[in-house]
Protein backbone atom coordinates (compact mmCIF):
# COMPACT_ATOMS: atom_id res chain seq x y z
CA UNK A 1 0.00 0.00 0.00
CA UNK A 2 2.84 2.40 0.92
CA UNK A 3 4.55 1.75 -2.36
CA UNK A 4 1.28 2.22 -4.28
CA UNK A 5 0.64 5.52 -2.49
CA UNK A 6 4.14 6.69 -3.35
CA UNK A 7 3.58 5.73 -6.99
CA UNK A 8 0.31 7.66 -7.04
CA UNK A 9 1.11 10.83 -5.09
CA UNK A 10 4.88 11.18 -5.12
CA UNK A 11 4.89 13.93 -2.48
CA UNK A 12 8.70 13.80 -2.07
CA UNK A 13 9.56 14.72 -5.66
CA UNK A 14 10.60 18.37 -5.98
CA UNK A 15 8.23 20.44 -8.07
CA UNK A 16 9.29 22.43 -11.13
CA UNK A 17 7.61 25.49 -12.62
CA UNK A 18 6.49 23.16 -15.46
CA UNK A 19 4.58 21.07 -12.89
CA UNK A 20 2.87 24.16 -11.52
CA UNK A 21 1.99 25.60 -14.93
CA UNK A 22 0.74 22.25 -16.20
CA UNK A 23 -1.55 21.77 -13.20
CA UNK A 24 -2.91 25.30 -13.59
CA UNK A 25 -3.73 24.50 -17.22
CA UNK A 26 -5.18 21.10 -16.35
CA UNK A 27 -7.41 22.55 -13.64
CA UNK A 28 -8.49 25.28 -16.08
CA UNK A 29 -9.34 22.65 -18.71
CA UNK A 30 -11.48 20.74 -16.18
CA UNK A 31 -13.30 23.94 -15.21
CA UNK A 32 -13.83 24.87 -18.86
CA UNK A 33 -15.25 21.41 -19.64
CA UNK A 34 -17.51 21.66 -16.55
CA UNK A 35 -18.79 25.05 -17.71
CA UNK A 36 -19.39 23.97 -21.33
CA UNK A 37 -21.17 20.76 -20.26
CA UNK A 38 -23.33 22.66 -17.77
CA UNK A 39 -24.59 24.94 -20.53
CA UNK A 40 -25.01 22.08 -23.00
CA UNK A 41 -27.03 20.02 -20.52
CA UNK A 42 -28.94 23.09 -19.35
CA UNK A 43 -30.05 23.90 -22.88
CA UNK A 44 -30.89 20.26 -23.67
CA UNK A 45 -32.92 19.91 -20.47
CA UNK A 46 -35.31 22.51 -21.88
CA UNK A 47 -36.57 19.70 -24.16
CA UNK A 48 -37.49 17.63 -21.13
CA UNK A 49 -40.68 18.18 -19.20
CA UNK A 50 -40.71 15.35 -16.64
CA UNK A 51 -38.34 12.92 -14.97
CA UNK A 52 -38.92 9.50 -16.51
CA UNK A 53 -36.07 7.64 -14.89
CA UNK A 54 -34.57 9.30 -11.79
CA UNK A 55 -30.81 9.04 -11.39
CA UNK A 56 -28.41 9.90 -8.58
CA UNK A 57 -29.71 12.70 -6.41
CA UNK A 58 -33.00 12.61 -8.34
CA UNK A 59 -33.83 9.29 -6.70
CA UNK A 60 -34.01 11.03 -3.34
CA UNK A 61 -35.20 14.47 -4.40
CA UNK A 62 -37.85 15.37 -6.97
CA UNK A 63 -35.87 17.51 -9.42
CA UNK A 64 -38.87 18.34 -11.66
CA UNK A 65 -38.63 21.95 -10.44
CA UNK A 66 -35.49 22.49 -12.54
CA UNK A 67 -37.54 22.19 -15.77
CA UNK A 68 -39.53 25.30 -14.90
CA UNK A 69 -38.57 28.94 -15.33
CA UNK A 70 -35.42 28.02 -17.31
CA UNK A 71 -33.81 27.01 -14.02
CA UNK A 72 -31.28 24.75 -15.75
CA UNK A 73 -29.83 27.83 -17.44
CA UNK A 74 -29.52 29.59 -14.09
CA UNK A 75 -27.76 26.51 -12.72
CA UNK A 76 -25.34 26.61 -15.66
CA UNK A 77 -24.64 30.27 -14.93
CA UNK A 78 -23.90 29.59 -11.26
CA UNK A 79 -21.66 26.61 -12.14
CA UNK A 80 -19.74 28.82 -14.58
CA UNK A 81 -19.21 31.52 -11.95
CA UNK A 82 -18.16 28.96 -9.32
CA UNK A 83 -15.67 27.29 -11.69
CA UNK A 84 -14.10 30.61 -12.62
CA UNK A 85 -14.02 31.83 -9.01
CA UNK A 86 -12.46 28.58 -7.80
CA UNK A 87 -9.85 28.64 -10.54
CA UNK A 88 -8.99 32.23 -9.64
CA UNK A 89 -8.74 31.08 -5.99
CA UNK A 90 -11.63 33.26 -4.88
CA UNK A 91 -13.27 31.26 -2.09
CA UNK A 92 -12.40 27.93 -3.78
CA UNK A 93 -13.49 25.95 -0.70
CA UNK A 94 -17.04 27.14 -1.29
CA UNK A 95 -16.99 27.58 -5.07
CA UNK A 96 -15.78 24.10 -6.06
CA UNK A 97 -18.11 22.05 -3.79
CA UNK A 98 -21.05 24.18 -4.96
CA UNK A 99 -20.03 23.68 -8.61
CA UNK A 100 -19.81 19.92 -8.01
CA UNK A 101 -23.25 19.73 -6.38
CA UNK A 102 -24.93 21.81 -9.09
CA UNK A 103 -23.08 19.95 -11.86
CA UNK A 104 -24.50 16.70 -10.48
CA UNK A 105 -27.98 18.25 -10.36
CA UNK A 106 -27.57 19.39 -13.96
CA UNK A 107 -26.53 15.87 -15.00
CA UNK A 108 -29.49 14.13 -13.35
CA UNK A 109 -31.84 16.73 -14.87
CA UNK A 110 -30.44 16.22 -18.34
CA UNK A 111 -30.21 12.41 -18.22
CA UNK A 112 -33.64 11.75 -16.75
CA UNK A 113 -35.12 9.96 -19.77
CA UNK A 114 -33.70 6.54 -18.98
CA UNK A 115 -30.41 6.40 -20.86
CA UNK A 116 -27.28 7.63 -19.12
CA UNK A 117 -24.09 8.80 -20.78
CA UNK A 118 -20.59 8.31 -19.42
CA UNK A 119 -18.64 10.74 -21.61
CA UNK A 120 -18.51 13.36 -18.85
CA UNK A 121 -17.75 11.04 -15.92
CA UNK A 122 -14.03 11.82 -15.97
CA UNK A 123 -14.78 15.55 -15.87
CA UNK A 124 -16.97 14.96 -12.81
CA UNK A 125 -14.32 12.77 -11.15
CA UNK A 126 -11.68 15.41 -11.87
CA UNK A 127 -13.83 18.17 -10.39
CA UNK A 128 -14.33 15.98 -7.31
CA UNK A 129 -10.57 15.31 -7.01
CA UNK A 130 -9.65 18.98 -7.35
CA UNK A 131 -12.34 19.87 -4.79
CA UNK A 132 -11.09 17.27 -2.29
CA UNK A 133 -7.54 18.53 -2.73
CA UNK A 134 -8.61 22.10 -1.99
CA UNK A 135 -10.67 21.01 1.02
CA UNK A 136 -8.16 18.68 2.68
CA UNK A 137 -4.71 20.07 1.86
CA UNK A 138 -3.30 23.51 2.69
CA UNK A 139 -0.10 23.58 0.67
CA UNK A 140 -0.72 24.14 -3.09
CA UNK A 141 2.02 21.60 -3.90
CA UNK A 142 0.23 18.93 -1.84
CA UNK A 143 -3.10 19.87 -3.40
CA UNK A 144 -1.65 19.34 -6.88
CA UNK A 145 0.02 16.04 -6.04
CA UNK A 146 -3.08 14.70 -4.30
CA UNK A 147 -5.45 15.65 -7.13
CA UNK A 148 -3.30 13.96 -9.78
CA UNK A 149 -2.71 10.82 -7.67
CA UNK A 150 -6.43 10.60 -6.93
CA UNK A 151 -7.15 10.81 -10.67
CA UNK A 152 -4.62 8.12 -11.60
CA UNK A 153 -6.26 5.85 -9.06
CA UNK A 154 -9.91 6.39 -9.97
CA UNK A 155 -9.45 6.61 -13.73
CA UNK A 156 -7.51 3.34 -13.62
CA UNK A 157 -10.21 1.81 -11.46
CA UNK A 158 -12.90 2.97 -13.92
CA UNK A 159 -11.40 0.94 -16.75
CA UNK A 160 -11.01 -2.15 -14.57
CA UNK A 161 -14.67 -1.79 -13.53
CA UNK A 162 -15.70 -1.42 -17.18
CA UNK A 163 -13.91 -4.67 -18.06
CA UNK A 164 -15.36 -6.43 -15.00
CA UNK A 165 -18.89 -5.31 -15.94
CA UNK A 166 -18.45 -6.99 -19.31
CA UNK A 167 -17.42 -10.28 -17.75
CA UNK A 168 -20.23 -10.12 -15.18
CA UNK A 169 -22.80 -9.07 -17.81
CA UNK A 170 -21.82 -11.55 -20.51
CA UNK A 171 -18.96 -13.77 -19.44
CA UNK A 172 -15.83 -14.79 -21.28
CA UNK A 173 -17.72 -14.97 -24.57
CA UNK A 174 -18.07 -11.17 -24.51
CA UNK A 175 -15.30 -10.83 -27.08
CA UNK A 176 -17.06 -13.03 -29.64
CA UNK A 177 -16.99 -11.18 -32.98
CA UNK A 178 -20.73 -11.48 -33.63
CA UNK A 179 -21.33 -9.12 -30.69
CA UNK A 180 -19.36 -6.46 -32.55
CA UNK A 181 -21.50 -7.12 -35.62
CA UNK A 182 -24.66 -6.57 -33.59
CA UNK A 183 -23.32 -3.25 -32.22
CA UNK A 184 -22.33 -2.10 -35.70
CA UNK A 185 -25.92 -2.73 -36.85
CA UNK A 186 -27.25 -0.94 -33.77
CA UNK A 187 -25.05 2.09 -34.41
CA UNK A 188 -26.09 2.03 -38.07
CA UNK A 189 -29.73 2.42 -36.97
CA UNK A 190 -28.82 5.21 -34.53
CA UNK A 191 -26.88 7.10 -37.17
CA UNK A 192 -29.73 6.67 -39.65
CA UNK A 193 -32.06 8.22 -37.07
CA UNK A 194 -29.56 10.97 -36.25
CA UNK A 195 -28.49 11.99 -39.75
CA UNK A 196 -31.24 10.65 -41.99
CA UNK A 197 -28.68 8.56 -43.87
CA UNK A 198 -25.66 6.42 -43.07
CA UNK A 199 -23.27 4.17 -44.96
CA UNK A 200 -20.99 1.67 -43.30
CA UNK A 201 -17.34 2.76 -43.38
CA UNK A 202 -14.46 0.59 -44.66
CA UNK A 203 -13.47 -0.67 -41.22
CA UNK A 204 -17.05 -1.65 -40.41
CA UNK A 205 -17.36 -3.55 -43.70
CA UNK A 206 -14.09 -5.38 -43.07
CA UNK A 207 -15.16 -6.28 -39.51
CA UNK A 208 -18.56 -7.54 -40.67
CA UNK A 209 -16.82 -9.90 -43.08
CA UNK A 210 -14.18 -11.19 -40.69
CA UNK A 211 -15.25 -12.92 -37.50
CA UNK A 212 -11.68 -13.51 -36.31
CA UNK A 213 -10.73 -9.87 -36.74
CA UNK A 214 -13.88 -8.73 -34.92
CA UNK A 215 -13.12 -11.11 -32.07
CA UNK A 216 -9.52 -9.91 -31.90
CA UNK A 217 -10.68 -6.30 -31.77
CA UNK A 218 -13.01 -6.97 -28.84
CA UNK A 219 -10.47 -9.15 -27.01
CA UNK A 220 -7.79 -6.46 -27.37
CA UNK A 221 -10.24 -3.86 -26.05
CA UNK A 222 -11.17 -5.99 -23.06
CA UNK A 223 -7.55 -6.70 -22.15
CA UNK A 224 -6.63 -3.02 -22.48
CA UNK A 225 -9.46 -2.06 -20.14
CA UNK A 226 -8.40 -4.70 -17.63
CA UNK A 227 -4.88 -3.29 -17.72
CA UNK A 228 -6.25 0.12 -16.65
CA UNK A 229 -4.82 -0.42 -13.15
CA UNK A 230 -1.35 0.03 -14.67
CA UNK A 231 -2.16 3.74 -14.50
CA UNK A 232 -1.38 3.48 -10.80
CA UNK A 233 2.33 2.91 -11.46
CA UNK A 234 4.73 5.55 -12.79
CA UNK A 235 6.62 3.22 -15.11
CA UNK A 236 3.53 1.95 -16.95
CA UNK A 237 1.29 5.02 -16.64
CA UNK A 238 2.06 6.72 -19.94
CA UNK A 239 1.90 3.51 -21.96
CA UNK A 240 -1.43 2.28 -20.64
CA UNK A 241 -2.97 5.74 -21.02
CA UNK A 242 -1.82 5.91 -24.64
CA UNK A 243 -3.15 2.37 -25.20
CA UNK A 244 -6.51 3.52 -23.80
CA UNK A 245 -6.47 6.52 -26.15
CA UNK A 246 -5.93 3.96 -28.94
CA UNK A 247 -8.87 1.93 -27.62
CA UNK A 248 -11.14 5.00 -27.71
CA UNK A 249 -9.95 5.92 -31.19
CA UNK A 250 -10.65 2.35 -32.34
CA UNK A 251 -14.19 2.55 -30.94
CA UNK A 252 -14.61 5.95 -32.64
CA UNK A 253 -13.71 4.40 -35.98
CA UNK A 254 -15.53 1.09 -35.77
CA UNK A 255 -18.64 2.08 -33.81
CA UNK A 256 -18.64 5.80 -34.57
CA UNK A 257 -19.00 6.69 -30.89
CA UNK A 258 -16.82 9.65 -29.96
CA UNK A 259 -14.99 10.08 -26.65
CA UNK A 260 -13.43 13.55 -26.97
CA UNK A 261 -13.34 14.31 -23.23
CA UNK A 262 -11.87 10.90 -22.29
CA UNK A 263 -9.21 11.22 -24.96
CA UNK A 264 -8.35 14.81 -24.03
CA UNK A 265 -8.00 13.98 -20.34
CA UNK A 266 -5.94 10.85 -20.97
CA UNK A 267 -3.59 12.81 -23.25
CA UNK A 268 -3.27 15.58 -20.68
CA UNK A 269 -2.38 13.09 -17.95
CA UNK A 270 -0.29 10.69 -20.06
CA UNK A 271 2.15 12.95 -21.83
CA UNK A 272 5.09 14.66 -20.06
CA UNK A 273 3.68 18.18 -20.40
CA UNK A 274 5.51 19.55 -17.30
CA UNK A 275 8.90 18.45 -18.69
CA UNK A 276 8.04 19.91 -22.08
CA UNK A 277 7.03 23.19 -20.45
CA UNK A 278 10.34 23.23 -18.52
CA UNK A 279 12.28 22.52 -21.71
CA UNK A 280 10.56 25.35 -23.55
CA UNK A 281 11.06 27.69 -20.62
CA UNK A 282 14.77 26.78 -20.35
CA UNK A 283 15.22 27.25 -24.09
CA UNK A 284 13.49 30.65 -24.01
CA UNK A 285 15.50 31.68 -20.95
CA UNK A 286 18.79 30.51 -22.54
CA UNK A 287 17.95 32.42 -25.71
CA UNK A 288 17.06 35.58 -23.84
CA UNK A 289 20.25 35.46 -21.75
CA UNK A 290 22.33 34.94 -24.90
CA UNK A 291 20.73 37.72 -26.89
CA UNK A 292 20.35 40.13 -23.99
CA UNK A 293 23.52 39.67 -21.89
CA UNK A 294 23.06 43.01 -20.19
CA UNK A 295 19.92 41.69 -18.45
CA UNK A 296 21.97 39.12 -16.56
CA UNK A 297 23.59 41.89 -14.58
CA UNK A 298 20.28 42.50 -12.84
CA UNK A 299 20.22 39.05 -11.23
Amino acid at each position, binding site marked *: *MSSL*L*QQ*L*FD*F*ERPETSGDRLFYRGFEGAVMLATTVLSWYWGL*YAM*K*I*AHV*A*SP*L*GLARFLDVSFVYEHDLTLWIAAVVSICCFAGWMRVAPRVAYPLALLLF*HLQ*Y*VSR*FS*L*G*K*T*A*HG*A*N*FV*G*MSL*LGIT*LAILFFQDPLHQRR*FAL*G*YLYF*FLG*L*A*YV*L*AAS*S*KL*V*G*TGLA*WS*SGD*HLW*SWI*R*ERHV*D*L*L*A*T*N*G*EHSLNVLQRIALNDYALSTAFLAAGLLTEFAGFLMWFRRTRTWIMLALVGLHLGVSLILEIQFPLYIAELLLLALPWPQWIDLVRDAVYARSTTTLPEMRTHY
Partner: protein
Amino acid sequence: MQSPNKPTSASDLIKQSQFSGLYKKSRRILIAVFLIYAALVASNRGEFWPFSIYPMFSSADRPWVRAIVRNVEVMPSDSVHWTPVDVPDLPGDPFVLDDHNVLANDVAAFLNSPDPWNPMRLEDLRTLLGASPSNGRAFVLYRVEEERDVDEPLRVRCTPLLYLFPETEELNPNVLSKG
Protein backbone atom coordinates in the same frame (compact mmCIF):
# COMPACT_ATOMS: atom_id res chain seq x y z
CA MET B 1 6.22 5.65 4.60
CA GLN B 2 9.79 4.73 3.84
CA SER B 3 12.01 7.23 2.16
CA PRO B 4 14.38 5.88 -0.50
CA ASN B 5 17.31 7.29 1.52
CA LYS B 6 18.00 6.80 5.19
CA PRO B 7 17.39 10.02 7.16
CA THR B 8 20.68 11.55 8.19
CA SER B 9 19.60 14.59 10.16
CA ALA B 10 16.79 16.00 12.28
CA SER B 11 15.43 17.95 9.30
CA ASP B 12 15.30 14.72 7.27
CA LEU B 13 13.31 13.08 10.04
CA ILE B 14 10.89 16.01 10.16
CA LYS B 15 10.45 15.85 6.39
CA GLN B 16 9.92 12.11 6.48
CA SER B 17 7.29 12.48 9.18
CA GLN B 18 5.56 15.23 7.16
CA PHE B 19 5.44 13.02 4.05
CA SER B 20 4.20 10.12 6.13
CA GLY B 21 1.31 12.28 7.33
CA LEU B 22 0.47 13.34 3.78
CA TYR B 23 0.40 9.74 2.59
CA LYS B 24 -1.77 8.69 5.53
CA LYS B 25 -4.22 11.49 4.83
CA SER B 26 -4.30 10.66 1.11
CA ARG B 27 -4.88 6.99 1.87
CA ARG B 28 -7.78 7.84 4.19
CA ILE B 29 -9.40 10.06 1.54
CA LEU B 30 -8.93 7.42 -1.18
CA ILE B 31 -10.49 4.73 0.99
CA ALA B 32 -13.38 7.01 2.01
CA VAL B 33 -14.12 8.00 -1.61
CA PHE B 34 -13.83 4.38 -2.70
CA LEU B 35 -16.30 3.22 -0.02
CA ILE B 36 -18.75 6.03 -0.89
CA TYR B 37 -18.32 5.14 -4.58
CA ALA B 38 -19.08 1.45 -3.87
CA ALA B 39 -22.05 2.22 -1.61
CA LEU B 40 -23.62 4.66 -4.06
CA VAL B 41 -23.27 2.55 -7.21
CA ALA B 42 -24.36 -0.59 -5.36
CA SER B 43 -27.56 1.09 -4.17
CA ASN B 44 -28.28 3.04 -7.36
CA ARG B 45 -28.25 0.46 -10.15
CA GLY B 46 -24.58 1.05 -10.93
CA GLU B 47 -24.90 4.78 -11.56
CA PHE B 48 -24.48 7.72 -9.20
CA TRP B 49 -22.75 10.26 -11.35
CA PRO B 50 -19.83 10.82 -11.54
CA PHE B 51 -19.48 7.34 -10.01
CA SER B 52 -20.32 4.42 -12.25
CA ILE B 53 -19.53 0.76 -12.77
CA TYR B 54 -19.29 1.66 -16.49
CA PRO B 55 -21.71 -0.97 -17.80
CA MET B 56 -21.59 0.26 -21.43
CA PHE B 57 -21.65 -2.70 -23.83
CA SER B 58 -21.56 -5.13 -20.92
CA SER B 59 -24.59 -7.13 -22.06
CA ALA B 60 -23.29 -8.40 -25.35
CA ASP B 61 -25.77 -11.16 -26.03
CA ARG B 62 -29.03 -9.27 -25.59
CA PRO B 63 -31.00 -8.00 -28.60
CA TRP B 64 -31.22 -4.22 -28.82
CA VAL B 65 -34.19 -1.92 -29.45
CA ARG B 66 -33.68 1.48 -31.05
CA ALA B 67 -35.92 4.17 -32.51
CA ILE B 68 -36.33 5.91 -35.88
CA VAL B 69 -38.71 8.76 -36.63
CA ARG B 70 -40.11 9.30 -40.13
CA ASN B 71 -42.02 12.22 -41.57
CA VAL B 72 -44.83 10.77 -43.74
CA GLU B 73 -47.67 12.18 -45.81
CA VAL B 74 -50.92 11.00 -44.23
CA MET B 75 -54.19 12.49 -42.98
CA PRO B 76 -55.64 11.67 -39.56
CA SER B 77 -58.74 10.35 -41.31
CA ASP B 78 -56.69 7.88 -43.39
CA SER B 79 -56.38 4.33 -42.20
CA VAL B 80 -52.78 4.07 -41.02
CA HIS B 81 -50.67 0.94 -41.47
CA TRP B 82 -49.11 -0.94 -38.59
CA THR B 83 -47.26 -3.54 -40.64
CA PRO B 84 -43.56 -3.91 -39.72
CA VAL B 85 -41.11 -3.08 -42.51
CA ASP B 86 -37.39 -3.47 -43.20
CA VAL B 87 -35.14 -0.39 -42.93
CA PRO B 88 -34.87 0.20 -46.72
CA ASP B 89 -38.68 0.10 -46.99
CA LEU B 90 -39.38 2.82 -44.41
CA PRO B 91 -41.97 5.21 -45.85
CA GLY B 92 -41.76 9.00 -46.14
CA ASP B 93 -38.74 11.16 -45.33
CA PRO B 94 -36.37 10.84 -42.39
CA PHE B 95 -37.03 13.05 -39.40
CA VAL B 96 -33.38 14.00 -38.90
CA LEU B 97 -32.81 14.07 -35.14
CA ASP B 98 -29.59 16.04 -35.48
CA ASP B 99 -31.45 18.90 -37.19
CA HIS B 100 -33.63 19.16 -34.09
CA ASN B 101 -30.76 18.71 -31.60
CA VAL B 102 -32.20 15.44 -30.27
CA LEU B 103 -30.00 12.49 -29.35
CA ALA B 104 -31.01 9.05 -30.67
CA ASN B 105 -30.35 7.58 -27.22
CA ASP B 106 -33.06 9.77 -25.71
CA VAL B 107 -35.70 8.80 -28.28
CA ALA B 108 -34.85 5.12 -27.80
CA ALA B 109 -34.97 5.51 -24.00
CA PHE B 110 -38.31 7.30 -24.31
CA LEU B 111 -39.68 4.48 -26.44
CA ASN B 112 -38.37 1.74 -24.12
CA SER B 113 -39.81 3.27 -20.97
CA PRO B 114 -42.52 1.05 -19.42
CA ASP B 115 -44.67 4.09 -18.53
CA PRO B 116 -48.18 4.21 -20.05
CA TRP B 117 -48.69 6.23 -23.23
CA ASN B 118 -50.98 8.79 -21.62
CA PRO B 119 -51.49 12.35 -22.95
CA MET B 120 -48.66 13.67 -20.76
CA ARG B 121 -46.14 11.21 -22.20
CA LEU B 122 -47.26 12.01 -25.74
CA GLU B 123 -46.87 15.72 -25.02
CA ASP B 124 -43.39 15.03 -23.58
CA LEU B 125 -42.49 13.26 -26.84
CA ARG B 126 -43.56 16.30 -28.85
CA THR B 127 -41.48 18.53 -26.56
CA LEU B 128 -38.44 16.26 -26.98
CA LEU B 129 -38.72 16.23 -30.78
CA GLY B 130 -39.12 20.01 -30.70
CA ALA B 131 -41.17 20.16 -33.91
CA SER B 132 -44.67 19.56 -35.13
CA PRO B 133 -45.64 17.95 -38.45
CA SER B 134 -47.15 20.21 -41.07
CA ASN B 135 -50.76 19.72 -42.18
CA GLY B 136 -51.27 16.51 -44.13
CA ARG B 137 -48.19 14.92 -42.59
CA ALA B 138 -47.34 12.95 -39.46
CA PHE B 139 -44.25 11.91 -37.53
CA VAL B 140 -44.15 8.14 -37.18
CA LEU B 141 -42.14 6.63 -34.33
CA TYR B 142 -40.70 3.22 -35.22
CA ARG B 143 -39.34 0.63 -32.85
CA VAL B 144 -36.32 -0.91 -34.58
CA GLU B 145 -34.99 -4.26 -33.42
CA GLU B 146 -33.03 -7.27 -34.52
CA GLU B 147 -35.08 -10.36 -35.26
CA ARG B 148 -33.01 -13.35 -34.27
CA ASP B 149 -34.40 -16.59 -35.60
CA VAL B 150 -32.03 -19.52 -35.87
CA ASP B 151 -33.71 -20.73 -39.08
CA GLU B 152 -33.83 -17.32 -40.77
CA PRO B 153 -31.11 -14.85 -41.74
CA LEU B 154 -30.84 -12.01 -39.23
CA ARG B 155 -32.98 -9.01 -40.12
CA VAL B 156 -33.65 -5.58 -38.67
CA ARG B 157 -37.38 -4.86 -38.43
CA CYS B 158 -39.13 -1.53 -37.90
CA THR B 159 -42.53 -1.59 -36.20
CA PRO B 160 -44.61 1.62 -36.30
CA LEU B 161 -45.61 2.48 -32.74
CA LEU B 162 -47.49 5.72 -33.13
CA TYR B 163 -48.42 8.51 -35.49
CA LEU B 164 -48.08 12.08 -34.28
CA PHE B 165 -50.44 14.27 -36.31
CA PRO B 166 -50.40 18.07 -35.90
CA GLU B 167 -53.18 17.92 -33.29
CA THR B 168 -53.82 14.27 -32.52
CA GLU B 169 -52.09 10.93 -32.14
CA GLU B 170 -52.80 7.36 -33.10
CA LEU B 171 -51.21 4.45 -31.24
CA ASN B 172 -50.49 0.98 -32.60
CA PRO B 173 -53.26 -1.03 -30.91
CA ASN B 174 -51.23 -4.24 -31.12
CA VAL B 175 -48.27 -2.86 -29.20
CA LEU B 176 -49.20 0.18 -27.13
CA SER B 177 -52.03 1.03 -24.85
CA LYS B 178 -53.11 4.47 -23.68
CA GLY B 179 -52.75 4.91 -19.93
